[in-house]
């Protein structure tokens, strides 16, 4: 009797919690989609911020995220390869893994402040490069940890088999081991990209924002997320509508990247 009651009580509590959690998520998505789609026009995508659109913001956000990836992916992957394949899991490796984990959970605004001191202050103002570096710093530890973990899943026999065929260490690692871990690493890169493309804090006082279309990374650089933050605080209806539209577009972009990541993992397994 008592056991049955307890069972039912816990079942009800956990179901209720799940409903509350998912309910809020649905609420956010529905509000966002409703307000977002209502505020979305074709001109939203063709105009720049100064004319009431988000064209320059999308281009700016993607440019910074892609450039950050171009910096972070090679560094992160090579560091991950070092940790798993070359470090022999010594003390240095342990310190590096811990540092990387700490970096991963570092508040993004702190990274923004750091880059401000490094690349904004000394160069006399906000610039696109500073935003890129801030995003890259956020991305590197995620990629290190993904690479490290995915390489650890590659069976040791595969390395031995490569060596038994006369392969040198670097050839085995690059041509066999990394290839075997390719799907996992690609997914990790995609997910970390999805993570940084929605970041605001690291850009807020590094690249800041720009109302106009620009590809000049030495200037203030247009950002979708920073614009959402700015627009949402303006009193006029048009600005707030644009903020909804921009939020909706951003959410869809992140969702899409996540789905692609999942799809790649699933189709290869």
């Amino acid at each position: 009797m008592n056991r049955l009651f307890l069972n039912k009580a816990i079942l009800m509590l956990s179901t209720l919690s799940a409903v509350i959690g998912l309910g809020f998520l649905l609420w956010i998505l529905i509000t966002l989609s409703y307000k977002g789609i209502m505020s979305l026009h074709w001109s939203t995508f063709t105009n720049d911020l100064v004319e009431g659109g988000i064209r320059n913001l999308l281009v700016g956000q993607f440019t910074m995220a892609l450039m950050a990836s171009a910096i972070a992916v090679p560094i992160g992957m090579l560091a991950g390869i070092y940790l798993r394949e070359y470090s022999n899991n010594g003390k240095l490796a342990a310190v590096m893994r811990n540092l990387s984990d700490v970096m991963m959970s570092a508040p993004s605004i702190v990274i923004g402040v750091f880059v401000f001191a490094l690349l904004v202050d000394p160069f006399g103002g906000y610039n696109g490069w500073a935003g890129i570096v801030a995003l890259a710093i956020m991305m590197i530890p995620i990629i290190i940890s993904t690479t490290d973990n995915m390489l650890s899943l590659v069976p040791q026999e595969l390395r031995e088999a490569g060596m038994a065929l006369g392969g040198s260490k670097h050839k085995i690692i690059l041509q066999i081991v990394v290839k075997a871990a390719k799907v996992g690493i690609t997914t990790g890169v995609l997910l970390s990209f999805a993570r940084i493309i929605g970041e605001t804090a690291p850009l807020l006082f590094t690249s800041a924002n720009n109302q106009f279309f620009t590809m000049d990374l030495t200037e203030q650089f247009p950002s979708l997320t920073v614009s959402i933050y700015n627009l949402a605080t303006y009193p006029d209806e048009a600005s707030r509508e644009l903020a909804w539209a921009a939020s909706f577009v951003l959410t869809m972009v992140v969702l899409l990247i996540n789905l692609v990541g999942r799809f790649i993992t699933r189709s290869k397994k």
Partner: protein
Amino acid sequence: MTTDTMIMEVKDFSFTYAGASSPSLKKINLPIEKNKITALIGPSGCGKSTLLRSMNRIHDLYPGNHYEGEIRLYDGDGKGGNILEIKKENDFIKLRQDVGMIFQKPTPFPMSIYDNVAYGLKLAGIKDKSEIQGRVEKALQDAAIWGETKDRLKESAMGLSGGQQQRLCIARAVALKPDVLLFDEPTSALDPISTGAIEELIAELKKDVSIVIVTHNMQQASRLSNYTAFMYLGDLIEYGKTDKIFLNPSVKLTEDYITGRFG
């Protein structure tokens, strides 16, 4: 026994794993006869895999292991270099091309069937496409897997069955035309039918290559091998013709192991 019938010779060989206080192999002396199959048997932990893995120095993938003594690999003229003295990258690559290895679990690379076999050839520096193609085909035929794979060479090797993957790994090793092939319990992860196919293949291969096989399966050792070495706790207890070892062993310990009294 003279050196011209030997392909390899282990002399006073000791091996200590990194960080271990005592050696795992103690003063082993063992000839490996040319174009014959030598089986290494013994209970788990006796050092048979350690010895096998010393013969192409695959241990060197991990730092800190310690070798002592000699393992000589003889060429056609009966001259033999001590493979334990190898230090240069190029000499290691040459050693592993001469002494191939097949592992317990099949280890196909994440690439096509064709590329799996061609990979070793490319590592060996062969660039001529038609030569690679010819040798891949020959190796797949030698490994008795050509019939099953000839129409799907471009497909991923991961789609093959376990037994097929193991024969592909043998083809990969055979393609390099090695002098010696080391088999580390090559059938223990396979079903009986695949095991039969691999055993037939190993028996066939001895025409061209000398074979050392580590096995837990006593029947396999007696069926396949010409010579058998029984090892126990890092010592080589007895070595001789397989018939002799299995029917009339000289040492009591060998007899106890073979008759299943321990191990």
